[in-house]
């Protein structure tokens, strides 16, 4: 099990909040309304644990926006919301007066853009911390159970994810979402070393 010291955890939360704040500013200017994004905490967990944490009920679907990053290490990043929450977010942002029961093609694309902005901000943070370099693919929209979205049945149950909690606040509404980075153990070890170096640079 990967555990973090309090100082490692707090430092990473702080850094994520700075970059996610920039993503929120970018989104606010798109929709002309104040959007606040915050990262209250994050954890490392196995894919199986992450799938369980995301599962809100038997057969309930999750909406995911996924992007693959290659570079210093390879990772798949996924932004996830329960399906009904994703409908709310898109409708708040797009301002559609008559909602359909499922995200339409164009709404899925809007959701992909929201994911794209948040995920690029997250990987940008990680790249900064570790002094790494990544290139990304275009985002893809997916709907499925949490196990399907996280490929829990294809991967070894011991594979780890960096699981980041994200609060999405808009028009006095608060919606909780999650970002998962599917990484292997050496990548996580590399990230933690970099965090330590980063903390070392902060005057205590």
């Amino acid at each position, binding site marked *: 099990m990967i555990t973090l010291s309090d100082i490692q955890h707090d430092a990473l939360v702080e850094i994520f909040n700075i970059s996610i704040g920039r993503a929120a500013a970018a989104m606010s200017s*798109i929709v002309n309304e104040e959007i606040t994004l915050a990262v209250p905490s994050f954890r490392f967990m196995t894919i199986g644990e992450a799938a369980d944490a995301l599962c809100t009920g038997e057969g309930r679907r999750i909406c995911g926006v996924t992007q693959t990053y290659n570079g210093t290490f390879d990772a798949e990043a996924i932004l996830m919301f329960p399906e009904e929450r994703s409908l709310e977010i898109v409708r708040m942002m797009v301002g559609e007066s008559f909602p359909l029961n499922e995200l339409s093609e*164009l709404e899925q694309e809007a959701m*992909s*853009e929201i994911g*794209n902005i948040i995920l690029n901000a997250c990987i940008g943070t990680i790249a900064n911390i570790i002094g790494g370099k990544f*290139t990304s693919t*275009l985002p893809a929209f997916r709907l499925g159970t949490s196990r399907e979205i996280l490929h829990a049945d294809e991967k070894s149950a011991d594979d780890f994810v960096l699981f980041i909690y994200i609060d999405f606040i808009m028009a006095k509404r608060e919606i909780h979402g999650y970002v998962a980075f599917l990484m292997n153990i050496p990548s996580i070890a590399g990230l933690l070393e970099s965090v330590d170096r980063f903390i070392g640079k902060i005057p205590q």
Partner: protein
Amino acid sequence: MLTKQSAKDGPPEAKLLAAVMDAINVGVIVLDQNECVVCWNPWVEKVSGIAVDAVHGKRLTEVFPELEGKRIQSAARSALRNGYASILSQSLNKAPFPLFTREPATEGLIRIQQAIHVLPLHMEGMAPHCLIQIFDVTPAVSRERILREQAQEMRAFSHIDGLTEIANRRRYDECVEDEFRRAKRNGTLLSLIMIDIDYFKAYNDSYGHQMGDACLTRIADTLNAALHRPGDLVARYGGEEFVVVLPCTDREGAYQIAEHMRSQVEALNIRHAASAVADHVTISLGVASVVPLHSRELDELQDYADKALYQAKHAGRNRVVVYDAPAT
């Protein structure tokens, strides 16, 4: 700049690539490290009205000053500096590029609805470039608009009774629940009137279903015409039963409306030889009125109105009975 002209004397690969750029039905713009245009395909030429020679080596924001500080600019920078791909959806970015087509019917110019992909390009031994692809999603936008309008129409229809064109049972159920909650919150009165057409089965049997339908429609119109406030609702409850929701109305007010309805239906003077009450169609009405306190349930109110209607029928029909709540 890659164009058919510039590739004329180049290697076959360049000619082929230029021909593809020429034929492809997607806007392709490539920017170099300094955000200057190095590729501008004929699709973009056509819809922007700007020839490739006029943009060569210019920064994208020089060509389109309105893009300065916009998301497309930061997406291009993110691709060039960090290597990240971005998408700009049509829904969240209202047609960022000033690109137009002619509307066939009116010949007027319409701004193309756009979905944009911004991708980093990495080539061995070369500085990073950025590829901007622009897709025309105008047809998809209008398709979704039509879909949405149809869904909205269907929803409206699903709340209307097909025969009488007044509210149906589903609309009533939603309305009465809302009004009950509202009355509870505000401590105001809520009244219901339950209405039944007297000897309607006998009417159907002797005059036929077509006449029966016509009778229902005329009565529905008459009941509807008796209501004047925007919050009041009359709905077809079942076969020959109707229900009226009257927010902020006391027993006396509800009785007045019910009695008015009764007399208006009588005034229609629809012949009904099989009725045991009169030689024309009549209705019986049950009125109930409550202030929904915490202990009161909606079912109770409906039950009171039902009981009042039952009493009206037993007392000889063609009349209004107001439910008298037992003393508590």
